[in-house]
């Protein structure tokens, strides 16, 4: 009893949040899953959704959905690789202390302060596929500096078009990854570097064998953050490619189209459930892993 009296107030503190999260996150997820399994018949008798798992097989076998999945894969791979590369590179350039470091850091990080929608407006213009005398944005810039060969259709054409959609995302988030790595480097004590140097390690070996291994938890965090952002990405694509763009379609934007253009909430619910599943497969092991290790420490 004493014990209960001791922790009951704690539970009371958190109760409002538990109820809200319970309803608005888990309750709604379950409700959405329910919708995804529904059978829907119009009053005139037409079958709009067969119900059960067939709703799922129907969507998964739809070429439009497969195209969206492919786009998501290309986007995610490019986005993750790009932000990790630039984030790490910038962190390496800055980590040993350069003059004006603060200024560089602020500049490289500033896109993070802007919303995806605002960034999308400008990148829509930058990534215009028009060429030649009609060119604007980046294509025009390339012409001006004599690099006509670099002109591209960007996200508007090609099997790997979504790699171009990753460019604005990389622009926005590389600074963030840089900040993460930079914090990681700063967290490693100077003694370790000195010790390695005394042992005669080259700079390369110092990074390879001493510093990088200690950054791997950060790299994992960064990977999960960027990866799950990519899977959820909606704002940027919506504001760059316009609503219901097929070429730049990913599951997150297709869900909007299904709901508002195709009047098919069932398919939208199936799509959303699958998206949740994809994200969960990536995130849950990570959450379990990090929270287990933490428990061990405390």
């Amino acid at each position, binding site marked *: 009893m004493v014990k209960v009296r001791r922790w*009951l*107030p*704690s*539970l009371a*503190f*958190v109760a409002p*949040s538990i109820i*809200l*999260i319970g309803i*608005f*996150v888990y*309750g*709604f*997820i379950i409700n*959405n899953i329910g*919708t995804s399994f529904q059978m829907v018949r119009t009053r005139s008798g037409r079958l709009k959704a067969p119900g059960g798992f067939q709703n799922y097989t129907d969507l998964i076998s739809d070429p439009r959905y497969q195209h969206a999945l492919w786009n998501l894969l290309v986007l995610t791979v490019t986005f993750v690789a790009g932000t990790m590369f630039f984030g790490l590179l*910038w962190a390496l*350039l800055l*980590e040993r*202390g*350069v003059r004006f470091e*603060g200024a560089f*850091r*602020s500049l490289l990080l*500033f896109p*993070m*302060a*802007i*919303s*995806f*929608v605002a960034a999308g*407006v400008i990148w829509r*213009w930058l990534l215009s596929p028009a060429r030649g005398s009609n060119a*604007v*944005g980046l294509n*025009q*810039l390339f012409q*001006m500096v004599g690099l006509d060969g670099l002109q591209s259709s960007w996200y508007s054409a090609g099997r790997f078009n979504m790699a171009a959609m990753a460019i604005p995302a990389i*622009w926005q988030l590389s600074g*963030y990854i840089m*900040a*993460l790595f930079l914090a990681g480097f*700063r967290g490693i004590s*100077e003694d370790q570097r000195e010790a390695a140097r005394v042992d005669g390690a080259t700079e390369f070996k110092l990074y390879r064998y001493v510093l990088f291994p200690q950054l791997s938890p*950060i790299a994992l*965090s960064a990977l*999960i953050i960027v990866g799950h952002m990519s*899977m*959820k990405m909606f704002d940027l694509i*919506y504001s760059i490619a316009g609503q219901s763009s097929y070429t730049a379609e990913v*599951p997150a934007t297709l869900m*909007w189209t299904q709901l508002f253009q195709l009047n098919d909430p069932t398919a*939208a619910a199936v799509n*959303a459930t699958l998206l949740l599943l994809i*994200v*969960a497969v990536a995130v*849950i092991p*990570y*959450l379990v892993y990090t*929270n287990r290790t933490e428990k061990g420490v405390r």
Partner: protein
Amino acid sequence: MSAATLEADQLAAVPARHRRATRGQKAWGSLQYALLICFAIIVLMPAYALLVTSFKRQADYDQSTAWQIPTHWSVEGWVAAWGTLAPAVGRSLVMAIVAAAVSAMLGSLNGYVFAKARFPGSHVIFVLFLFGMFIPYQAIMIPLSGLMLNIQDGAPWFSGIPTLILCHIIYGIPICTLIFRNYYATSVPTEIVEAARVDGATTWSTYTKVVLPISPPAFVVTLIWQFTSAWNDFLFALFLTNQTNGPVTFGLNALASGQNPNYPQIMAGVLVASLPTLLIYIILGKYFVAGLMSGSVK
């Protein structure tokens, strides 16, 4: 990584470490600056295009000279953008401030419990909360939008900003809880809490007398983080509001996808819609970065 704490100072510039600069290091040094300057220019390029376009007159705007500085500097675009977006900016301010304040309060309560006043099962609940941070909101959007429409039917005043405030509070709970929990776990010595307990203090009075007074740094970080994410949100705005009662991201998207694009106005609109978050970034950059760090879960 426990850099999840507020030690943004970790990022603070480090004094140059290498006194004995060899020739190789000097060459590396110049390369380092060259690269940094290059990257900074690339990152700033979209901002340049935004700024020069926003100061052009609509009549002068010609896509063939889009990259050049204005022949006539004018604030016409800014005036027009402000005229269109001002009401939405006001709504966004109310929304972001209220949502940030309430979710920070909830986050502080939860964080305290999860860090220092646990109850059986609190760890599991904490992890369940964390997962709420990663879910794609598509997975809850259909039931959410249904519920909100139902509430709005009975209470029309609830449409628009109040709806979004509720959503941002609820879906902000996980990240706010995380920031506070990590802060309390590292910055509040368990002994103090225990000592207060032994003295017969209730959970509530321990919280108000011991924990809350040392919380301001965490509040600053959380408020900034929540303000920024509510301000920048587009997904909830698109699904749950419309142009007449929605936030500035909605207004900006509508402005930019209008049928006769007025580029100076649109580009000025991007800046108007980004101004509050950019100001926060410039003035309170340290806390902004700290918030980013806490986004990395641990």
